[in-house]
């Protein structure tokens, strides 16, 4: 689980890129607190062949990336 809450964009998507490039996870969860981060991570994930699902709770979002 990557906790990128409180980080302003584009830092969260870069954190996800670093994790993907380093460990090539089959599944990855990311927490963010801004819609722009959800959008950016979703775009990146799609470009790397991940399916993305998003859950929202109280202004915070949990993204699940799966290959």
């Amino acid at each position: 689980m990557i906790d990128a809450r409180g980080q302003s964009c584009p830092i969260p998507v870069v954190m996800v890129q670093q994790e993907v490039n380093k460990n090539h996870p089959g599944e990855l969860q990311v927490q963010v607190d801004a819609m722009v981060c959800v959008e950016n991570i979703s775009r990146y994930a799609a470009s790397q062949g991940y399916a993305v699902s998003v859950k929202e709770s109280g202004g915070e979002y949990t993204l699940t990336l799966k290959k």
Partner: protein
Amino acid sequence: MEHEVKLTKLAKCAGCGAKVGAGVLAQLLGDMKVLRDPNLLVGFDKSDDAAVYKVSDELALVQTLDFFPPIHDDPYTFGQIAATNALSDVYAMGGEPKLALNIMAVPKDMPPDAVHELLHGGYDKAYEAGAIIVGGHSILDNEPKYGLSVTGFVHPDKVLTNSGAQPGDVLLLTKPLGIGILTTAAKVDMASKESLALAVRLMTTLNKSARDAMVKYRVHACTDVTGFSLMGHGLEMAQGSGAELHLNVDAIDLIGEAVDLARLGVLPEGMYRNRSFAEPYVDPGDVELARQDVLYDPQTAGGLLIAVDPADADALFTELQGVVPSAQRIGTVETYRGGKRVFLL
């Protein structure tokens, strides 16, 4: 020039990306009572770049204001960019900037020499434009901000608005797109030195040469491409002119690295704001998402989007080549058929 102040670290949004979205702005201004004046040739109801007020049959005043948080860490460069961006609104109306006032917010602890450099950048660009900075107003704030209120002149019969485009007009653009994505990537050191240098060069290039060239031809409409992106400003031109725009995306100069970064999801928040504002009116055809993103990318001190009479298009295009950063012939204005306003081909 080296400074220890990392200006962009003090800012949440970079440059024109900090702009309130076009849709939100329209709502905020929606029920405002506006005093009518027959001499007000262009007011805010037209969503144009600047206000234009006719003083006499020979002279109209062009008035505009633009400011934003740091988009570059070097104060001198930031000052130049903010001034270039603010002056651009006068050029977009076909005018010549004459007087300017500084508008500035500085944190208490910002070193005086950094503030001086920032202002120096603004003064240098105003000087290059032939305008005089005659004063201004500064306040204390946690986040630095800088810009200019600019007054310019134009002949009342030669005002170029964003709403005069006619079916058959050729659309020209004078700078490449992708500046917002590159400056966003620079915040996390993901932009190459070369691309960042290109972005700075573009953001500090006045639209003066483009303006000086276009006023010699039958230009029907003009706007500068800034925070609302090519798509947002293009949509406003289409709506204001009662027409539709057909854009040939292959002819648009999209900075290659910006397209790559868009594919990696490194995109400014303003891109999404511009998308939600303009997308309902856009037929994207089969243009790749990342390339569309660059078309929605908020530009700081972007180029001019010019709708020129087809009979003059070749001549103006030829004249622009060599005097603007990137002369592009990007599409045409067509008769509105009642559906979408902007078509990507």
